[in-house]
C-alpha cells in the first residue's frame, strides 16, 4: 500500500501510523519533521509544485517498496504556513522485519529532501527569508545511489 498526500491540514500521526500496519508487517519505521522553534522562527511557509510534487513522492515510495520489499509506504507533507512545533512531514514504512523498514524510512526522507519540489520560507517577526538548500542534504541523498 502506498499513500502520498500533500495538504495544508495538520498531520495526525496516530491516524497515519494506525493505517499502515497491514497483515505481514512486523515493523513500522517513521520520521517526522517538525518546525524548530529555537532559532527565532515565528512561522514557516511551505510552497510546492502541485502535480509534480505528488508524482515525485509516489515515485520515491514505489522505489522504496520495490527495493526493501515493503508492505506499505506513506509520505505526508504539509504545505502553507505553520507554527513552530507543528509537523512538516511524516514518512512511514512497514515491512516484515525492522532492518528493511528503518532503511527505507531513511531513504525516503533523504531523497524527499533533494528530489521533491518544496521550498521553505522562514518568518522571524517581520523579517522573511527563503531557506537555502544544504550541502549535507545532497550528501545524505547520494548514499542511496544504486
Amino acid at each position, binding site marked *: 500500500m502506498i499513500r502520498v498526500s500533500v495538504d495544508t491540514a495538520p498531520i495526525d500521526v496516530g491516524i497515519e501510523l494506525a493505517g499502515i500496519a497491514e497483515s505481514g508487517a512486523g515493523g513500522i519505521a517513521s520520521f517526522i*519533521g517538525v518546525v524548530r522553534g529555537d532559532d527565532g522562527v515565528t512561522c514557516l511557509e*511551505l*510552497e*510546492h*509544485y502541485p*502535480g*509534480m510534487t505528488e*508524482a515525485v513522492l509516489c515515485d520515491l515510495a514505489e522505489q522504496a517498496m520495490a527495493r526493501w520489499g515493503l508492505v506499505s509506504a506513506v509520505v505526508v*507533507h504539509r504545505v502553507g504556513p505553520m507554527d513552530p512545533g507543528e509537523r*512538516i*512531514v511524516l514518512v512511514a514504512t512497514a515491512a516484515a522485519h525492522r532492518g528493511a523498514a528503518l532503511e527505507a524510512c531513511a531513504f525516503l*526522507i533523504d531523497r*524527499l*529532501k*533533494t*528530489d*521533491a*519540489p*518544496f*521550498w*521553505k*520560507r522562514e518568518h522571524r517577526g517581520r523579517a522573511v527569508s*527563503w*531557506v*537555502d*538548500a*544544504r550541502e549535507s542534504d545532497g550528501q545524505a541523498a547520494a548514499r542511496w545511489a544504486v
Partner: protein
Amino acid sequence: MRLLYFAWVRETIGVGEEDVQPPEAVRTVADLIDWLRGCSDAHAAALADMTRLRAAVDQKFVALDTQLGAAREVAIFPPVTGG
C-alpha cells in the same frame, strides 16, 4: 509554452506563471532563461545567476543544458528545500 516560477524566482518576477512563445533560436532551458532575461527588469533580476537556478520540463527535473524539444510546461526555481 507554459512557464511556472517558484519561491524567490516567482516573487522577484512577480507572477507564478505565464505563457510565452520563445523564438526558434531558444533550444535549451539555458537558452530560455537567457531569452527571458530580456522580457523585463524583474525577469533579468530573478534570472541573473544561472548557478542559483534549477528547472523541470514537463514536471521532470532536468539539467539546464537540456533541449526543450516539444516541452509544454517549463518550471524555473531555486534548489528545493522540503522535508
